[in-house]
């Protein structure tokens, strides 16, 4: 862990007017910079989208049958 790579940032462009609006908005909040705020908002939106796109069910019917049997045997299900 000695030769650690530096944290990588890159630049995206946003309209100057939007930048000013955000700068104004984050005054007296926990956000220390427009970059921090934009990162936060983008992560939030990404997480929401990912959750919406997740599939209905991640396990097979065989799994379900086998697990339910065990859950019944252990008293978790009637």
């Amino acid at each position, binding site marked *: *862990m*000695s030769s*650690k*790579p530096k*944290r990588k940032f890159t630049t995206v462009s946003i309209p100057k007017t939007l930048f000013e609006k955000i700068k104004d908005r984050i005054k007296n909040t*926990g956000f220390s910079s427009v970059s921090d705020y934009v990162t*936060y*908002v983008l*992560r*939030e939106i*990404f*997480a929401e989208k*990912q*959750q919406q796109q*997740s599939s*209905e*069910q*991640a*396990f097979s019917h065989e*799994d*379900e049958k086998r*697990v*339910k049997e*065990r*859950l019944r045997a*252990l*008293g*978790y*299900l009637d």
Partner: protein
Amino acid sequence: MKMNQAHGGSLVSRILSETASNKLKEQASEYPTITISSSIADIVQNIGHGVLSPLTGFMTEAEVNNVLDDMRLLSDTPWTIPIVLDVKEANDFSVDDEVVLSTDGAPVAALSIEEIFKLDQRQFSQQVFGTQDSKHPGVARVHAMGKTLLGGKLSVIPSPPKKFAEVTLYPLDTRILFKTKGWRTIVAFQTRNPPHLGHEYVEKTALTFVDGIFINPLIGPKKPGDFRDEVILDAYRALMKTYFLRENSVLSILRSPMYYAGPREAIHHSIMRKNFGCTHFIVGRDHAGVGKFYHPFAAQEIFTQFPDLGITPLLFKSFFYCTKCRSIANDKTCPHPKSDHINFSGSEIRRHFKDGLIPPESLMRREVAEVIASHPEPFVT
């Protein structure tokens, strides 16, 4: 009805099929073997069963550094505690080696070594625990670790636990359980202690707003003076039998070491519960703290840094008994001065049991207290 997805997008399984497991067991002696502690063996099973999704093995150096510096995996997914395998000697292994991990003389997994790198104890301790003070139990453990770390993917032999098998559930089990019960919103409660009334009120307050509660004691290495695992379980069974509804509460254990990493560990605990299918996670005062190493509410404040965590923290201040309200209350619900309050002090409760007494019913349910008192030695000695 949609279930909360696993951390990073999908539930990991690194569990070998029965045939592959048998083959690995037969051929284990042909591979170099690393003997691991029971605590690392728990982590191996957890990775295998997706408790630590999206991890598929032990972290490589870039991943560890990213977690230490940014509290995120290289995929930008929130992650706060490096999950690493340490060994004493680097020379015994090479990259691309397949090694067998074994505990108590039995193989438990195969590890494909992707990377061999050095542990930076100072950086690890400072970033994870915010201190390098060896009085901190997490720092002390980092100091005791081998200086070399092995990163790589695991293939895990499923090993049914020797103890508490009847309350051992993994994420696939709980996801199917919650689905079958028709629960859409589930709050998880992390604990290492038998429940007093303060715990019960936190749990029930949270439960009021969701479909079900998942009470999930952490079972792992203990310090002398801690309540024994079986005592914690029996105490919860006694509480839930009389004071919880069976249709909206579930008790199951999680085998995982405590790091005492306070805020970072609060995030780690919530990620594991998200993988079990929970949507909410209770965070109280000084969650996963030790001594005076963390601000009592640091473990709550850290959640503001993770808008993409995918599980909602329910932040609680401490409950107490108010002699004026004549009920359990907290700072938000009780207008009376502190002199009217009786705190639910864990050390006070311990003291009662150590003196061979039973804590008063204003602190702990009689049924719970009696079950604890009936154990010949409730504490780890």
